[in-house]
């Protein structure tokens, strides 16, 4: 494993950066830099160890299937709790109170759906990607191309949002130039995934989840301690301090009209069940029982985390608004998204600030690694293995393809991160959820539960959902007006999910029931065998034990 060369280059590059930094900026936070370097050293060490254990495609995509339900639950939480949701929701609570809660709830409500409808059949039918399940009884080629496109679009939008966020955050926290920050993130995630595959990615998620949950718990504890652990006291003090006063206790401007409200709800709820990097995690456990256990723990951790984030947002209202040191020209330094970071300083001085900064950084790295792995598996397992290898099983070639794909995705992520530096990318996470809900989720759900689904229906309907989602976002207010600068949006709503998800379901239904071809009849007849396996797990490949 050629692991040492890039490692040495990276470490020396970072040492140079740190040195240049230390000489140019005396106010650098030593705790933050030390903690960050410790995280990098530990995770690269794990990657080195994981590289020696990554020999087969099963190791690379699914960590050999040897992860326990509890570990996987924590890793799912690690994959899902992004820095964007930690800093973004805390920032939204800080600016408008209740509105932050709307997002927090939306990010959680998809999980019971994942558990009850998706997790167990997914584990019983699939091997490495959700396209395995979608194409189980349908034609391999068109379905895998569609599923891989849906995955890649979701992954790329999500990646851009994370990369730009990462660059800005690191620029602000460590004083590094934006480009350098984006490159460091890109290089580290590429190293984790290329050499350590799913084993390294899982451990990065686990460490990050533990760090983030303990950091956020500590902050929420310190906030609640000041208010006698009473929400009423916390809210009362916040209402007194905040400019919007009592209005922070009620819905504000986040969702203004019913269509947008319902649309946002649909995207968040069903998008969760269509995120490729989350779905992929279910193949790392032994069987459906462990898959079920994973979601139970993940939902607990994620729900707990959003409650913490909510408390942190309110803590920021009370502790920051009273202190002019955190403001320049009446605005919070670094914008509302920095509320949680400033609050850590207000609560625990430079040491807690350093800790939380490093945690935020670790969070970004973990999320982008999971995304990159999902993207590269879509390319190697769904596209390369089906289109180029044409079903011929060649593990070495497939792993090599996924490593090349990982490096390419790393480069693309860095370039897009730099291109989108000046853009408002907040809408991209919403777009990723919208595409996941409109393309990936309908195909996956109907392939598992609807006998009459055919290849033609899935391809036309899924494609319709994918294109409708992307086009309506582009001609809607967030891109057409805010990014392109046109005066009036062609499509009036910010969130198009209600239209694109309906388009997908109606398209799949119509083009399936009108499909009278011989292959369609065969696909429908194959449903019974598939359903037996999805319910009982009989026939699902026994995963290797580590």
């Amino acid at each position, binding site marked *: 494993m050629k692991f040492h060369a890039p490692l040495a280059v990276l470490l020396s590059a970072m040492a140079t950066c740190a040195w240049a930094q230390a000489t140019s900026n005396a106010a650098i936070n030593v705790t933050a830099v030390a903690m960050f370097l410790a995280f990098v050293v530990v995770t690269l060490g794990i990657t080195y160890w994981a590289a020696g254990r990554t020999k087969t495609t099963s190791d690379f995509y699914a960590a050999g299937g040897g992860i326990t339900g509890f570990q996987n639950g924590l890793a799912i939480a690690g994959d899902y709790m992004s820095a964007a949701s930690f800093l973004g929701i805390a920032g939204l609570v800080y600016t408008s109170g209740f509105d932050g809660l709307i997002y927090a709830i939306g990010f959680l409500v998809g999980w019971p759906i994942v558990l009850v409808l998706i997790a167990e059949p997914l584990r019983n039918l699939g091997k490495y990607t959700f396209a395995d399940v979608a194409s189980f009884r349908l034609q391999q080629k068109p379905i895998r191309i569609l599923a891989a496109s849906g995955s890649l679009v979701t992954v790329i939008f999500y990646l851009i949002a994370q990369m730009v966020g990462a660059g800005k955050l690191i620029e602000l926290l460590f004083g590094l130039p934006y480009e350098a920050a984006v490159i460091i993130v890109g290089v580290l995630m590429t190293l984790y995934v290329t050499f350590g595959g799913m084993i390294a990615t899982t451990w990065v998620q686990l460490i990050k989840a533990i760090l983030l949950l303990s950091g956020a718990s500590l902050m929420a504890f310190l906030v609640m301690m000041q208010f006698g652990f009473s929400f009423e006291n916390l809210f009362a003090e916040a209402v007194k301090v905040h400019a919007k006063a009592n209005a922070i206790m009620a819905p504000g401007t986040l969702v203004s009209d019913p269509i947008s409200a319902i649309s*946002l709800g649909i995207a968040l709820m069903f998008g969760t069940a269509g995120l490729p990097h989350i779905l992929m995690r279910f193949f790392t456990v032994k069987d459906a029982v462990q898959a079920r256990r994973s979601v139970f723990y993940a939902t607990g951790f994620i729900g707990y985390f959003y409650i913490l984030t909510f408390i942190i947002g309110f803590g920021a209202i009370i502790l920051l608004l009273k202190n002019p040191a955190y403001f320049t020209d009446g605005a919070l330094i670094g914008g509302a998204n920095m509320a949680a970071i400033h609050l850590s300083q207000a609560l625990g001085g430079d040491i807690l600030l350093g800790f939380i900064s490093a945690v935020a950084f670790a969070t970004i790295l973990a999320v982008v690694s999971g995304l990159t792995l999902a993207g590269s598996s879509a390319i190697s397992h769904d596209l390369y293995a089906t289109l180029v290898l044409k079903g011929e099983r060649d593990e070495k070639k497939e792993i090599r393809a996924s490593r090349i794909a990982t490096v390419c995705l790393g480069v693309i992520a860095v370039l897009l991160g730099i291109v989108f530096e000046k853009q408002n990318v907040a809408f991209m996470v919403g777009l990723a959820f919208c595409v996941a809900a409109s393309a990936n989720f309908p195909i996956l759900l109907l392939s598992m539960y609807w006998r009459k689904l055919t290849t033609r229906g899935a391809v036309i309907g899924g494609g319709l959902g994918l294109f409708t989602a992307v086009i309506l976002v582009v001609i809607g207010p967030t891109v057409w007006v805010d990014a392109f600068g046109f005066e009036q949006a062609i499509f009036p709503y910010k969130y198009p999910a209600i239209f694109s998800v309906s388009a997908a379901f109606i398209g799949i239904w119509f083009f399936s029931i009108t499909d009278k071809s011989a292959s369609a009849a065969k696909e429908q007849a194959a449903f019974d065998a598939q359903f037996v396996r999805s319910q009982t797990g009989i026939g699902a490949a026994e995963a290797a034990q580590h």
Partner: protein
Amino acid sequence: MHTETIRQLPEYAALTRARKKIMWPLSLATIVAYFALILTIAFNPTALGNPIGAGVTSIGMVLGLGVILFCMVITGLYVYYANRVLEPLTRAIVQKAGEQS
């Protein structure tokens, strides 16, 4: 063992019945709870701002945090039911399938 033979097993019929009995009610409960909140936010936002008691804590805050806890309870209920009801049936089917193959 052939798919048809498994489908004829009484345990298989019991399993699909038991799963249907828990799957749709829990999914619907989650969807209804969430969209009830979302629709109230859309159509009657001021109602959510009313305080629940003598203090400032609003109905919306309580309902919002309630939905988060509700999601955790739903997953707990499902896992409890699955371990007690679905798992023994699945094991019985797998065992019978193994004996006859």
